[in-house]
């Protein structure tokens, strides 16, 4: 225990836990003085952040003692209207009784009528398990509107993705190309690595319409038009093929580039790989041996299979290597072609390609590490091209994002960077093969009353048979995930939940439980209309969404629309796990997970949401939460974390460290009753360091895979091939072409599937453009989150709101001056869906066709316990009002009324950054406040009636009691 300069009577304690001011999960050391927080610092003994801490983490005190805390369960007063926010306090027992009665009735009759949707929580292994055991398919977290294109595009291509499951190896990289990232999910570690990278001479190129955040320190800024990254990536692939700049040894050995694809347009198996067995599926895919002039089993008789050309097998099947198809695909994607789309000059694209090619040729890294590949060949070294990429929402949040990220993945593959030194590195438990990732339920038979869901609420389909649709091919999830509309919506579509539930399309819900997601504000597209839907009623007075339960720690905008409010704790008052079953904090050199432990007692009657889930699961008799005799299995959440096993006796649970009765086993082992203490005594994390021969090329590394099978990360040792060509997509396309038996898409969706389920990447304009008058709305409008607010819930934070109390629309200086707009002017920003009045700032750091703002700084009047004249509501604004959650309604050729989400047609990723706008000066006589404005909620029970004019925080005086 440390002591500070204090009087002798002061009680000083130092405890460690994990930050949760955003989703980054740094280790922190919290110093308490007389039971109040004196100081939160980064824990120098924590591997993730090694002592550093961001602006949010350093402002945790103001979250803990925020006057916007909810402190007791509340119910909408009988006879009041939803949305007025007129609540009365009730007890937890009454709260649980209401929920138990309501949910047990739904579960016994029609479990899909219960929806559980969560935000940026870090407990999806638990909430997902609850939904699955309850038997509802209507569960998702916020990935569908965040970066699911990144997760899906990369996992379907390379078996891993950025952030928790992989990242740029900046310690060894020579060149970093960052595309569409301002701040990042892996926030502090990336900042730390960027700095080291620059200091040891690495070159950093940022591709982004805007130069802020990390881009500010880029050695070079390449301004790109939003939604056109795919064209740039296609042109880079084109150019690198042209100048012979790729790593052909890597490509041949580790990718499906040499595998032969059936190109017979008359065949029902067109576009599928051909197999030695003559069957449609299997690992026995063929290569072309040019020496013997025949097809041979992959990785057997030749090291130099043909990558290009057209051949005919002895069975008379016309084939081409997948790489040949890629070459043909990018043939027209010249730098000149991309220049016209992206706004980046052809010369610049050529020089980027030349720079990469130079590193492939002259700058590869070879490490003296001995390892054996899955084909049994021993290698004396590991080679790689030290070009690292990083990308996140900027590429993902477009309706063409999936294919863009396919193109990015392929570029990374062809350069020889996947799980190679200095490239993209996996983090355990990844890489994983799509084939063995969980699958969604498949049909109506998979959800039955009083029965767990047969399947995982969220999963990874590989063919139409793994979609979740009824016999007519119609969606079965409320958000229409895993239907023919968005077949690979692996994170669900949170952005369509309210609209679909309100409209009753595909059906109405009964009870909607929302945790930590601000769907009445910045977490919805079309926010104004969504707020109307939340309070809309049938003619008989019944709400269209009959019962809404909201769990939140603060009086967010969403709380206003609840019928029942569950007060959550802060991160300093709870147990939590960053589980290996979920999204752990693993490093490149081995699996790592971590925990939170309570530093302070819960405020008032606050209860962690996990406790609510474990309590409800027990009350509802969900099978995995009860013993054989029907008694409750878990006392509380900490007890659940220690004792839950994926299967009885599996030895695999939520935490990987200190397993086994005596705590001596890692990753797999019986439950250990002292596991929490052992984590707490080790700075709240567990890190298993793998031997060096496990560190690289894990898609093909036998040493690694044998161990991964042992600990349950992989089902078996086999190559997880890097997909230049995605056969999974082709299965869907064949169905749409009517060439495949089994499930068929509804006719009105055939063309959509045929077009977008292309096994090779391609560039297309974001979908909404086709419905937009681009002459009238010429500008792209995008948002970013600032570093001091990224992934945070801290609009109420007294210190952070002094950094960003309101936002502006940033406009390129030339663009603004053409319209006579000056710095600081009040302007209107208008899309075809709506308009917003705000203030603007002129900038040279944004490309002329783009305007942008900080997201989620603007707040609704009265929310977050801010005064009704706060900057956030009077000068701050949301761009969300301009963005639609659906594309304009269309009548299809077949006569169907088509309502499609404004999302990627493959994954359902929300197309946040597709909107087109125009700007113009607000009238001189107009009110100088942002528009639209909303009617604030009433004061809630326990809310402070007056706010202090002065805040003079000084820990240890005991004056936080009344906060």
């Amino acid at each position, binding site marked *: 225990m*440390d002591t*500070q*300069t204090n009087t002798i009577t002061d009680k000083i304690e130092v405890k460690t836990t994990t930050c949760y001011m955003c989703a980054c999960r740094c280790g922190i050391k919290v110093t308490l003085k007389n039971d109040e927080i*004196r*100081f*939160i*610092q980064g824990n120098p003994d924590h591997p993730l*952040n090694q*002592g*550093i*801490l*961001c*602006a*949010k*983490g*350093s*402002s945790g*005190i103001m979250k803990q003692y925020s*006057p916007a805390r909810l402190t007791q369960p509340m119910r909408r007063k009988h006879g009041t209207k939803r949305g007025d926010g007129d609540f009365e306090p009730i007890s937890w027992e009454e709260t649980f009784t209401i929920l138990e009665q309501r949910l047990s009735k739904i579960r016994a009759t029609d479990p899909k009528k219960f929806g559980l949707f969560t935000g940026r929580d870090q407990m999806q292994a638990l909430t997902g398990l609850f939904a699955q055991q309850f038997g509802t398919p209507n569960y998702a977290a916020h990935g569908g509107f965040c970066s699911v294109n990144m997760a899906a595009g990369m996992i379907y291509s390379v078996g891993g993705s950025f952030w928790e499951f992989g990242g740029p190896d900046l310690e060894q990289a020579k060149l970093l190309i960052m595309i569409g990232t301002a701040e990042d999910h892996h926030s502090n570690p990336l*900042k*730390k690595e960027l*700095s080291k990278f*620059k*200091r040891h001479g690495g*070159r950093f190129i940022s591709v982004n319409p805007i*130069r*802020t*955040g990390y881009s*500010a*320190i880029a*050695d070079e*800024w390449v301004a790109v038009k939003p939604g056109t990254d795919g064209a740039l990536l296609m042109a880079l692939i084109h150019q690198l093929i042209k100048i012979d700049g790729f790593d052909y040894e890597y490509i041949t050995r580790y990718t499906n580039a040499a595998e032969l694809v059936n190109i017979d347009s008359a065949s029902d198996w067109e576009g599928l790989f051909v197999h030695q067995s003559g069957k449609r599926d299997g690992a026995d895919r063929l290569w072309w041996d040019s020496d013997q002039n025949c097809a041979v089993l992959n990785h057997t008789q030749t090291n130099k299979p043909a990558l290009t050309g057209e051949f005919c097998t002895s069975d008379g099947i016309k084939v081409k290597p997948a790489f040949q198809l890629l070459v043909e695909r990018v043939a027209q994607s010249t730098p000149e072609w991309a220049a016209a789309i992206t706004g980046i000059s052809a010369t610049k694209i050529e*020089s980027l390609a*030349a*720079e990469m090619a*130079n590193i492939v040729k002259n700058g590869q890294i070879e490490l003296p590490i001995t390892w054996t590949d899955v084909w049994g060949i021993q290698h004396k070294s590991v080679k790689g091209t030290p070009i690292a990429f990083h990308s996140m929402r900027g590429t993902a949040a477009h309706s063409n994002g999936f294919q863009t990220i396919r193109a990015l993945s392929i570029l990374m593959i062809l350069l020889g960077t996947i799980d190679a030194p200095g490239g993209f590195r996996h983090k355990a438990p990844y890489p994983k093969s799509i084939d063995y990732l969980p699958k969604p339920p498949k049909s109506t038979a998979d959800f039955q009353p009083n029965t767990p869901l047969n399947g995982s609420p969220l999963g990874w389909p590989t063919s139409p048979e793994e979609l979740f649709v009824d016999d007519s091919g119609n969606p079965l999830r409320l958000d229409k995930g895993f239907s023919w509309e968005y077949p690979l919506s692996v994170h669900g579509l949170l952005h369509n939940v309210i609209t679909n539930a309100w409209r009753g399309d595909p059906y109405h819900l009964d009870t909607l439980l929302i945790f930590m997601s601000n769907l009445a504000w910045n977490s919805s597209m079309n926010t104004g209309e969504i707020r109307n839907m939340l309070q809309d009623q049938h003619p008989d007075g019944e709400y269209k969404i009959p019962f809404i339960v909201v769990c939140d720690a603060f009086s967010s905008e969403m709380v206003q629309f609840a019928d029942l409010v569950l007060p959550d704790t802060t991160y300093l008052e709870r147990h939590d796990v960053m589980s290996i079953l979920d999204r752990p904090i693993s490093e490149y050199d081995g699996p790592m997970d971590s925990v939170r432990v309570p530093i302070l007692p819960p405020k008032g009657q606050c209860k962690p949401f996990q406790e609510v889930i474990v309590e409800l699961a027990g009350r509802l008799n969900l099978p995995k939460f009860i013993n054989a005799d029907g008694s409750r299995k878990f006392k509380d959440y900490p007890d659940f974390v220690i004792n839950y096993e994926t299967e009885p006796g599996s030895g695999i649970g939520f935490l990987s460290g200190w397993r086994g009765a005596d705590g001596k086993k890692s990753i797999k082992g019986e439950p250990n009753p002292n596991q929490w203490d052992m984590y707490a005594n080790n700075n709240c994390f567990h890190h298993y360091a793998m031997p060096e021969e496990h560190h690289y090329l894990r898609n093909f590394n036998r040493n690694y895979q044998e161990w991964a099978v042992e600990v349950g990360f992989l089902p078996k040792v086999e190559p997880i091939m890097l997909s230049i060509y995605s056969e999974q997509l082709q299965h869907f396309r064949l169905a749409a072409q009517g060439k495949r038996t089994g499930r068929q898409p509804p006719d009105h969706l055939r063309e959509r599937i045929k077009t977008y389920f292309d096994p090779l990447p391609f560039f297309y304009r974001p979908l909404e453009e086709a419905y937009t008058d681009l002459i009238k709305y010429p500008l792209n409008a995008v948002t970013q989150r600032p*570093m*001091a607010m990224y992934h945070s819930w801290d609009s109420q934070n*007294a*210190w952070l*709101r*002094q950094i960003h*109390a309101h936002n502006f629309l940033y406009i*390129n*200086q*030339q663009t603004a001056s053409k319209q006579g707009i000056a710095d600081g002017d009040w302007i209107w920003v208008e899309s075809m869906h709506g308009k917003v009045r705000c203030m603007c700032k002129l900038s*040279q*750091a*944004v490309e002329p066709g783009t305007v942008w703002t900080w997201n989620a700084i603007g707040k609704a009047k009265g929310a977050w*316990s*801010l005064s009704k004249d*706060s*900057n956030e509501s009077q000068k701050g604004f949301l761009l969300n009002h301009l963005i639609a959650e659906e594309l304009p309604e269309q009548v299809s050729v077949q006569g169907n009324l088509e309502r499609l989400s404004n999302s990627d047609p493959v994954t359902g990723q929300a197309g946040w950054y597709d909107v087109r706008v125009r700007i113009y000066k607000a009238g001189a006589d107009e009110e100088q406040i942002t528009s639209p404005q909303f009617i604030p909620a009433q004061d809630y029970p326990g809310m402070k009636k007056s*706010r*202090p*004019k*002065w*805040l*003079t925080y*000084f820990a240890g005086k005991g004056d936080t009691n009344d906060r």
Partner: protein
Amino acid sequence: MTVETNSKTKQLALVIDLNVCVGCQACVTSCKQWNTSGTAGPLADHNPYDADPVGTFFNRVQTFEVGEYPDTEVVHFPKSCLHCENPPCVPVCPTGASYKRAEDGIVLVDYDKCIGCNYCSWACPWGVRELDEYKKVMTKCTLCVDRIDDETLEERDRKPACVLACPTNARIFGDIHDPESDAAKAIENRGGYQLMPEWETNPSNHYLPRDNKRFAEQNQAAEEQL
């Protein structure tokens, strides 16, 4: 006025690396957090939950753009007391509250003597002194003296809060008169510079410039090799 510097005495200071600062504001709030409950605290906030919140911060980050699109640079510029070797804020203080600590050159304010007259902030050309409107005393960066003086802290913790927090390690702390210190070496090797040397305050804090030269050189090298 000439600047007399005794380079033999210790001068603690920050060397701030503009080449890696991403403007994350960690230094701003970690400073606020440590100091509000420290010997210089509390650091008051006016209207914390109302319109126009404004409080005392010892350290702020300014962001500005340089150049015209597309050759735009965005610079994040953290600014706090520069602990000048010839601090103009000290001689103007009528009560002796403003002083430069002999043993390590930190410029400090003795709240017990400060009458809040503002002379020192008018004399400071950098605008880094903030009158705490609640306490009515002049406040400023102390380089966290109550951390660096506290021998009960572990050695690695005896640094300013902003230095510990900075995610890009852009803040290098040390004795700039000791040529062996990281701070002095960074100034020497990376072209560390003082703000406005012509004003003759001889700021102790230094800045390391942006360094994009490698870019042109590397590109040229790449082209030559191809």
